[in-house]
């Protein structure tokens, strides 16, 4: 067993510097690497480029980095829940590259899987395709999209072991598995670090080969953005 375990978030984020490109898993506030984000705020790294489907809310998730003006550029598909984001974008302080959600996921997966680029129909004929190579296959038009290049990927899993194997829960899986191994260094934080040998190999979602560092996360808030319920009859 190759040991990927580090003792805490400080050790896990060693080497993170200003101006780097970072991938962060999560959809809305679901499955975001809460511990890594808190540490990025503490480290005061600046001018980072963040690849993340959303930008958090004003006081949580990537919203915390935005508040401290640590982000130079966001690459996301939907950023509608964040006033500070809107302010920085409209004032030109923040660069934003909006990318179709499926393309965003695939640009991660392509980096993970060693593909330099891929063709997708998403965005053809729209401003997303402007300046990009297009090509026809079987009478339909496609846009060439390059794989992402990132320095660090921060992902959050439900369970993991020191070998770096990961298991996700519910829809908190989202972009997390696609970002594993898609950056130079993948850092996984888990709600529960279990002893090696207790995860059934048949049930592992992401094999440890895609993960360089893993640590036991702490104090998860797991906030809910839209609490919708029905009454018991």
């Amino acid at each position, binding site marked *: 067993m190759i040991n990927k375990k580090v003792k805490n978030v400080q050790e896990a984020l060693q080497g993170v510097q200003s101006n780097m490109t970072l991938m962060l898993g999560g959809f809305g506030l679901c499955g975001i690497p809460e511990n890594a984000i808190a540490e990025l705020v503490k480290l005061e790294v600046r001018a980072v480029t963040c690849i993340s489907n959303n930008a958090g809310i004003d006081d949580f998730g990537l919203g915390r980095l935005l508040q401290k003006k640590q982000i130079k550029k966001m690459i996301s*598909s939907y950023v509608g829940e964040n006033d500070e984001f809107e302010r920085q974008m409209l004032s030109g302080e923040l660069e934003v590259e909006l990318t*179709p959600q*499926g393309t965003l996921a695939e640009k991660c997966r392509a980096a993970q899987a060693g593909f330099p680029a891929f063709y997708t129909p*998403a965005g053809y004929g729209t401003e997303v395709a402007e300046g990009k190579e297009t090509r026809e296959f079987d009478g339909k038009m496609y846009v060439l999209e390059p794989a992402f290049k990132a320095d660090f990927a921060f992902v959050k899993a439900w369970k993991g072991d020191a070998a770096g194997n990961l298991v996700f829960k519910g829809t908190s899986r989202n972009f997390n598995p696609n970002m594993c191994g898609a950056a130079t260094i993948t850092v996984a934080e888990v709600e529960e670090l279990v002893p090696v040998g207790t995860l059934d190999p048949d049930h592992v979602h992401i094999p440890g080969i895609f993960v360089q560092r893993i640590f036991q996360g702490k104090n998860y808030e797991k*906030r809910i953005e839209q609490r*919708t319920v029905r009454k018991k009859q």
Partner: protein
Amino acid sequence: MALDKNGIAQRIAQEVQDGFYVNLGIGIPTLVANYVRTDIEVEFQSENGVLGMGPFPFEGEEDADIINAGKQTITTLPGASFFDSSLSFAMIRGKHVDLTILGAMEVAENGDIANWKIPGKMVKGMGGAMDLVASAENIIVAMMHTNKRGESKLLKQCSLPLTGVGCVTKVVTSLAVLEVKNNQFHLLERAPGVSVEEIQKGTAGTLIVNGEIPEMILS
């Protein structure tokens, strides 16, 4: 009388067939699930990574790890599955999802759709809409026939930045059901009590009216 959002959802629910995998967008489309016949088998896909979505959880049973694409807490039904974002869009791009229902700001008579950006105002982003409209063969747009200023949302040409080109096949609005083909809107049904003249007046794009147009039947 023009339909409200629930009326539009109720009419669109009639388009959902037995054995369909369906992706519902945010807004009016989400309401469609409430009106689908209970004697057919349908599975709802949410692009954040769940197939087999159920109703909202009972109070106290919400799980922060189980949400839909609108970030609302949900439940799953027996037979449901979770998956990552790449696989989710493989279902969409790979045409495994049978029906996509989404909202729009504008639809053009050539099937173009705009629903993600108003230049100079807030840009929220396209989310999964560009992937959905570029891939699905069966796309129904759910929207009010006119905007808040009373202007038509069914146009000769979209004025807003496009989400996709030539992709919309059917539109269900507060006034009518329309098919989009041959660069024209073809009127199929009228909302109860709404005249062809009213629909004509609210439609800036080319509207084809062939013969007697029936009223929608909403049970």
